[in-house]
């Protein structure tokens, strides 16, 4: 066996963090096709005019479609999504990246913005689920 620098299972040991693996990338391929379609103004308009009908053009799972309608970014990441794709959706909504990202925390937009202004979230206690450090 080849040596690895660390066990790959440790990638799942980061609190509140999902690593975008090849398997997740495949799971979200059609979700991400939808996200990237929003790089076109006509598509954005079509989506805004009838979100559900527009989503039905894509071979996404029903759970993925519902999470898009709900703008539930944590759920979208759970369903394979990656933030670099998902911000195409929040940009289409006119949200700032900070609002989209902050929506995945337990804070209000104002609370999240205040935390960032105060220096961000310290890593203490958030490095490892196992080691609680």
């Amino acid at each position, binding site marked *: 066996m080849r040596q690895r620098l660390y066990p790959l299972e440790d990638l799942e040991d980061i609190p509140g963090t999902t690593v975008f693996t090849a398997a997740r990338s495949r799971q979200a391929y059609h979700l991400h096709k939808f996200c990237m379609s929003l790089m076109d103004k006509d598509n954005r308009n079509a989506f805004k005019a009838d979100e559900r009908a527009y989503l039905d053009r894509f071979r996404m799972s029903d759970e993925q479609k519902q999470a898009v309608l709900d703008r539930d970014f944590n759920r979208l990441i759970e369903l394979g999504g990656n933030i670099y794709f998902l911000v*195409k959706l929040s940009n289409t909504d006119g949200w700032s990246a900070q609002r989209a990202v902050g929506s995945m925390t337990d804070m209000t937009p104002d609370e999240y913005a205040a935390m960032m202004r105060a220096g961000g979230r310290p890593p203490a206690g958030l490095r490892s689920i196992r080691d609680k450090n």
Partner: protein
Amino acid sequence: MARVTAGIATSHVPAIGAAIDLGKTQEEYWAPVFAGYEWAKEWIKGEMPDVVILVYNDHASAMMLDIVPTFALGFAEEFEPADEGWGARPVPTVYGHTELAAHLAEQLVIDEFDLTIMNHMDVDHGLTVPLSLLFGQPEQWPVRVIPLAINVTQFPTPSADRCWQLGAAIRDAVAAFPEDLKVQVWGTGGMSHQLQGPRAGLINPEFDVSFLDKLTDQTDELRKITRLDFLREAGSEGIELIMWLVMRAALGEKVEELHRFYHVPASNTAVGHIVLKPRD
């Protein structure tokens, strides 16, 4: 002969681009960020390169879907700013340097870096925000740019040491190019930040400042940082710092730090910026 004359690293936060495009640079929130770039904006006027090899990551704008290249070299005559969901940034078209790009495409593959060659791609904020930070809002960019996009999105991303080796190979390839060109290598992205999940907003100034401190002459330590280390210490998007190592390695063994800047926050991100010059 062509030569690498300097290296610049900077964060490439999209909100920084929006602040420039919307005329908000003097607002209370943004003024300290832009003040940190005044030195380099003046300095580069006297050190203007002919070509910038700009190491960045595509944020699911031109890649990362139907194809997932680890290292992708921009090989077109021109690259248009990408529409990332609210219209393209109002910045000039980026013009490439196809002769040097062709040379790099050959030399780097011969040196066993199996590049993907991009004959057509749009460039997103990862590439255009650094240009805006250094050159402001010109009618045309004053330099040719060879984009070099590195996968930092889909695991596995290339190791820090692999990025270092790529930078070293770029240095050799530039030195073997017959035309007399001044080339800068820019590494972009970072510093600590996390854009997903309940842990979003993570910032680690100790890690970031240590990274800046070691970039001049303790680079062996930086080359050992694993993806797991980046995740634990610098947030899920802190991995972008591997692109700084391409820049650093392209400068050779000894460098002088000319300038640095560190500021928290810009949007979700710790902003880092450093200017390095090779020493003989």
